[in-house]
């Protein structure tokens, strides 16, 4: 039987599938999905075609409405969606960033091997769990005043490092150096700040996690070495969290505002959740200033957690940083909108690049990546689910040419949370994982089942597509040894 989507998409090659603009009246550009034929069935069932097509309605959108292979159904924008709009006369859409502004990932490398850590993993996981506040309704150990929170919004990671949370090098080795310029605390509502104050320095719940992992495979030794990843068996630490309630409130506030702006500027949209305003309008500028603040909050959050990870390792495994390592490899945002320069139709243009569940993938020699990575390209951190593996990749010139320098961000769900819980009823996830050598500690048992491997696409299939398509190149694969879930 032929698949229903065969009638709709144009196959460009094994990994590129185009949705022509005629698919839905009002599309300004085509849709382009990076995926394999095997994964298209699921993408079709999820009605993601509709969502990719809806994004193509945004005023000022250029190139294509893009979807990465981990794409799945989201509200408004699909998760795994990338859209570039002209900064001059295009729009910015808060829904194209999502509620968890600058949800992202940070990777630390250690000087330790699996043999040294495994005997103490249980103790280490318990210590991390005690030291890094996590779970629904948890509040942080940090006590910040309103004035200090404003500084967090403006300074990002720098704020944390200045207070002893982390190394100066951490800042340099983060996307945007852990701080988007132009943040304005005045544009962040008091409600957002009220949510943000107690939650600073918390992991949160849902799919957020902290993972101690082991290098399982190295695909490119020379590139890995530049990142300080030298051998199979080396221990790494991955931190996945975002801007917590502050970011959620900023998104909510600005979607409400932009619902008005849509009428004011006469923008025609197929879904209210895509509400937007011209980048250059007062509404657009205010959102960008508030979003930058929320993004900086998220970087501060990951920075503080980094510090507690280092403390925890030191306490359990003994020895100082010299012995342990725990230097930062990189930190990426995967829910963000940024003004970037890209070549469009042979002309350099400033674009507002929305990445919602997508990672920046800048190539070697790009001025916006740290000097140590100039020769290899920007590191890309792609977490999988807690039972499988995660990847480190690097950005490419082809990504710059085709995807506004973007690639995938993770595995992508295939099962709803309650379906996962139902299908795993009676299964002790922690025990199942323990039998495979993975120690897990979660704030709630429910969240463990919701986030089990069965609920996700295999991240290896996702990374295979981006690698073969050439929009990012895989460098390292790591498997989990200890996981903390909110």
């Amino acid at each position, binding site marked *: 039987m032929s698949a229903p989507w065969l009638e709709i998409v144009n196959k460009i090659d094994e990994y590129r599938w185009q949705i022509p603009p005629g698919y839905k009246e009002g599309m300004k550009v085509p849709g382009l999905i990076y995926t394999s034929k095997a994964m298209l069935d699921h993408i079709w069932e999820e009605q993601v075609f509709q969502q990719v097509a809806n994004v193509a309605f945004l005023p000022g959108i250029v190139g294509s409405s893009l979807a990465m292979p981990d794409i799945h159904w989201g509200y408004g924008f699909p998760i795994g969606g990338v859209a570039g709009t002209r900064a001059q006369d295009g729009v910015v859409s808060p829904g194209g960033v999502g509620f968890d502004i600058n949800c992202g990932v940070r990777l630390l490398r250690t000087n330790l091997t699996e043999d040294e850590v495994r005997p103490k993993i249980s103790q280490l996981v318990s210590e991390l769990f005690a030291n890094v506040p996590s779970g629904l309704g948890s509040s942080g150990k940090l006590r910040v005043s309103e004035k200090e929170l404003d500084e967090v919004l403006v300074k990002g990671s720098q704020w944390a490092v200045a207070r002893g949370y982390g190394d100066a090098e951490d800042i340099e080795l983060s996307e945007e150096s852990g701080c988007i310029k132009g943040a304005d605390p005045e544009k962040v509502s008091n409600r957002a700040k009220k949510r943000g104050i107690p939650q600073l320095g918390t992991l949160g719940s849902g799919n957020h996690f902290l993972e101690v992992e082991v290098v399982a495979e190295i695909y490119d030794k020379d590139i890995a070495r530049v990142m300080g990843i030298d051998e199979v068996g080396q221990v790494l630490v991955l931190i996945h969290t975002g801007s917590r309630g502050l970011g959620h409130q900023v998104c909510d506030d600005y979607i409400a505002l932009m619902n008005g702006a849509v009428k004011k500027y006469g923008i025609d949209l197929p879904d209210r959740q895509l509400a937007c305003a011209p980048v250059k309008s007062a509404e657009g500028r205010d959102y960008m200033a508030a979003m930058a603040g929320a993004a900086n909050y998220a970087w501060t959050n990951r920075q503080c957690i980094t510090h507690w990870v280092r403390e925890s390792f030191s306490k359990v495994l003994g020895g100082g940083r010299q012995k342990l390592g725990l230097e930062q490899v990189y930190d990426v945002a995967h829910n963000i909108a940024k003004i970037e320069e890209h070549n469009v139709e042979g002309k350099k243009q400033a674009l507002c690049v929305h990445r919602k569940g997508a990672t920046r993938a800048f190539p070697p020699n790009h001025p916006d990546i740290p000097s140590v990575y100039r020769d290899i390209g920007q590191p890309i951190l792609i977490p999988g689910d807690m039972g499988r593996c995660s990847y480190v990749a690097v950005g490419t010139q082809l990504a710059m040419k085709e995807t506004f320098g973007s690639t995938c961000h993770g595995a992508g769900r295939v099962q709803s*949370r309650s379906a996962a819980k139902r299908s795993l009823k009676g299964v002790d996830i922690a025990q199942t994982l323990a039998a495979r050598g993975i120690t897990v500690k979660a704030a709630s048992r429910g969240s463990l089942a919701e986030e089990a491997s069965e609920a996700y696409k295999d991240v290896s299939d996702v990374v295979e597509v981006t690698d073969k398509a050439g929009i990012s190149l895989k460098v390292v694969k790591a498997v989990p040894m200890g996981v903390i879930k909110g």
Partner: protein
Amino acid sequence: MVDEFEILEHTADVGVIARGADIGQAFANAGKALFSLITELEDVEEVIYREIEIDAQDRESLLVRWLNELIYIFDTENILLKVFDIQQLTNTSLKAVAYGEEVNTAKHQLKTGIKAATYHMLKIDENDGYRVQVLFDI
């Protein structure tokens, strides 16, 4: 009797459909549905209350604002709400009192964190009473 609410399955998010003889009841049941995602409602007692007064540009936005207000109360005050008395409701404004209890981890099991109510697939239908549909980002 028709169920007060049901949970909608979605891959990455979760939605609710709430019903009521009048629109106020449907809004109240949507609130109940929201907190049923966060915790077991039967464990929540009505010992404290919060007064809520909100405005929005139309009825759909009002529904989103209403639910986001409840999420805000949970997120900032750690209060689980279960009974909602809608005192006044127009197409653009709502006045209500919500009753519930502060989170007590010995008693309440927290299930799912809800980031926000969205406009995606948002629906308010009138047909033999009211039916509202909302999707949450979780």
